[in-house]
């Protein structure tokens, strides 16, 4: 639906200047990063863990002077246990903020994904119809195809058929009938005049 090779513009048209420029930029950036990585000297102290820190991290008393991270993980029962302990002690506030971020994202996705709605006041009843769903247009097209047998067999192999069909669907305004074609007693449930 969204990704088809024949609809990808970058495979069918001549690439603009930006594509060549971005390839140049990407290759240059990679060689710059690679030179920094291979020639740079990392001067960092490797952390050591004292028994007091291990006691504070996971409540296990260890015998010895200093331990590497792998030994501390063995004392605490594994990497996962140690990560969980740190996530709930030192990183508790970022953890809660991350949960808020996820909540906001979920609400935003639901609001953005809601179909467009209009509320109709029709014969005293309040109805809500969804404009996001092309209700009934497939039935109208199927009926039109059934009346004309020559058109009834669509060639599915030709690319771009959906684009050709999408134009009249959009022109009909997604509910099947354009606004100016609707008679005053237009019934939105059956999508035809009531008379």
């Amino acid at each position: 639906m969204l990704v088809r090779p024949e609809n990808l513009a970058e495979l069918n048209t001549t690439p603009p200047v930006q594509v060549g420029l971005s390839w140049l930029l990407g290759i240059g950036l990679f060689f710059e990063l690679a030179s920094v990585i291979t020639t740079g000297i990392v001067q960092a102290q490797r952390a050591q863990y004292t028994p007091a820190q291990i006691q504070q991290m996971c409540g296990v008393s260890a015998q010895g002077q200093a331990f590497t991270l792998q030994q501390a993980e063995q004392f605490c029962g594994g990497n996962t246990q140690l990560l969980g302990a740190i996530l709930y002690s030192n990183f508790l506030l970022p953890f809660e903020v991350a949960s808020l971020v996820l909540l906001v994202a979920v609400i935003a996705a639901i609001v953005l994904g809601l179909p467009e709605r209009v509320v109709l006041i029709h014969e005293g009843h309040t109805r809500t119809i969804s404009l996001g769903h092309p209700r009934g247009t497939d039935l109208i097209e199927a009926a039109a195809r059934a009346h004309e047998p020559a058109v009834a067999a669509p060639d599915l192999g030709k690319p771009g058929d959906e684009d050709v069909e999408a134009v009249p669907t959009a022109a009909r305004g997604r509910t099947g009938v354009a606004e100016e074609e609707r008679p005053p007693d237009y019934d939105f449930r059956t999508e035809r005049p009531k008379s």
Partner: protein
Amino acid sequence: MGDLTLTHFLTVSALLFVIGMLGVLTRRNLLIIFMSIELMLNAANLSFVSFARYRNLLSGQVIAFFVITVAAAEVVVGLAIIVAIFRTRATVDVDEITTLRG
């Protein structure tokens, strides 16, 4: 063949980041651009974890978790925006979405 050192991990991370950046710059389909952004975020994750491994620290791994969380939130909102754009314009080609062009 020696052991895997910090340099190897950082090289893979740089390669992933450059591939993602090339995808963002050259592709025109919004979904593929999104996949490329995910590739760049995961390259940063790989850097975090490899530095944490090198320095015997756990903070880098925790930060990688938070990066994954933010990436998930970004994907959720971005995919919803893509769906909304496809609904109104029937395309996900970024060259045809010029409404915000000043």
